């Protein structure tokens, strides 16, 4: 069982810290949301987990291993799968190539065919588009490729950065339904969303980030009832 822990993590770009003293825990199999407005530092938290941004202070611990300066690719191989902001697909490669590119190592390579079959069962629409270039797909389909690609790496924790952004509500609910299926099968989830209501309904526990700091945390139904969250993020009377 693998747990992810952030202990007093600070990180940023240039001279300024974007996030400060972040403490966060994702237990094995737990579904956790990180919510907050645009610019609160949510994506920076994601990047300190997957290694795209180095931590300046504090520790990121995965299982019994401190990630420290571990390379991005090694974190993926260690079981942290990311669906990044902006998806970062390989636009000139086909859908299948995008998926295969995420299974060029170890167990992922060994179980490649099985992984492809699983992704195509989860997203039948992608199977129809298997030979199509990823850059020509709709936004929703691209998001499915991005999730599929992360699954091909055989993650134990799936980190999703703004998966609903720019997508039609029908596509969003389709994607969240599939995330539900995945977590019921035991996958841990870190969901980063601006859509606060949607994310709180999909997780067990949540952290609210404001200006780079965790200002509130708790079980998601508690947060849904919190006057602060209701007023500031749900547009409801406190």
């Amino acid at each position: 069982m693998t747990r992810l822990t952030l202990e007093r993590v600070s990180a940023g770009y240039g001279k300024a810290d974007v996030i400060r003293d972040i403490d966060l825990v994702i237990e094995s199999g737990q579904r956790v949301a990180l919510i907050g407005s645009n610019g609160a530092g949510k994506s920076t938290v994601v990047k300190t987990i997957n290694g795209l941004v180095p931590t300046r202070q504090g520790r990121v611990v995965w299982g019994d291993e401190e990630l420290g300066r571990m390379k991005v690719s090694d974190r993926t191989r260690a079981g942290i799968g990311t669906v990044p902001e902006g998806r970062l697909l390989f636009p000139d490669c086909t859908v299948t190539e995008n998926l295969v590119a995420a299974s060029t190592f170890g167990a992922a390579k060994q179980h490649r065919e099985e992984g492809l079959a699983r992704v195509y069962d989860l997203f039948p629409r992608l199977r129809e588009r298997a030979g199509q270039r990823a850059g020509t797909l709709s936004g929703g389909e691209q998001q499915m490729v991005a999730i599929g690609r992360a699954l091909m790496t055989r993650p134990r924790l799936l980190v999703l950065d703004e998966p609903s952004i720019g997508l039609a509500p029908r596509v969003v609910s389709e994607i969240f339904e599939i995330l539900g299926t995945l977590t019921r099968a035991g996958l841990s989830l870190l969901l980063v969303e601006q859509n606060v209501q949607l994310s709180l309904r999909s997780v067990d526990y949540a952290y609210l980030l404001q200006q780079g700091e965790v200002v509130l945390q708790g079980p998601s139904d508690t947060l849904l009832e919190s006057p602060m969250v209701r007023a500031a993020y749900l547009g409801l009377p406190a």
Partner: protein
Amino acid sequence: MSATILLQALLSGMTNGAIYALIAVGLTLVFGVMRVVNFAHGEFLMLAMYGGYLAWAHLGLDPIIAVVLVVPALLALGVGLFETLIRPAMRVPEINQMAVTLGLSLLLQYLALMVFKADNLLIVQDRSTASLWIGPVLLQMPQAIAALAAVLLLIGLYIVLRKTDFGLIMRAVSQSRDGAALSGIDIGRTYRWAMGIGIGTLGVAGPLMASVLYVNPHIGALFTLKAFVIVIVGGMGSFGGVLLGALLVGVAESVAGVLTTASVAAAVPFALLILVMLLRPEGLMPVGGGSRA
């Protein structure tokens, strides 16, 4: 002017084009995967030509055999270049990277001048004066061999890029570096191999070209320029673009040589470059149909 002469010019142009493609493909691979502009590319060709010449002059090796020795040497030079100069240079702004590779280009030219002197050297064998008749037109044997090797290597490279995991990794990194890293692809290792292969391909071209063209310490600079014209005309980082660009440059040069004078013909590739930049600045076959995500 007769049709035969034009046909002859077309054939020579295509032959040269194939050889140019072989030289430019390594440049475009390095640029496409690493976004590094290697101004010293031609100097590695120069070294490979000397490698072929020395193997012939001192060991009596046929240039075709010398390829087997020169390719691993160039591959090792490519990896060495990456580990010593390029890896640190990738953390600095692009303009500084260019200064690094430009400096390396000059350094290699003058080191070659010290070691090999300024003499023009050429591999001369029995087959050097032989020629191959193809219908009414003829091809010099050394040129035909170099072009054939180029075509074979380009086909091989295409298959590797399209059909293997290794090729997919190269393409993935060239299209989204962070996306590739998040897919578990080791970026540093990919860069090392891209540079190794990008320069290693010159190990095929060099020895074979040393029996077509005189080698001297400054021969590389000419090919760096031509390779850049080809890569920019074709579309930076695109494999198909290199083939198209190289054939265009080769044929344009050679046909212009027949129609006008040699000095005008030498300017034709650059005129072609200016024309393409004006009409289609993204190149003829850009990666991703003109947009890049």
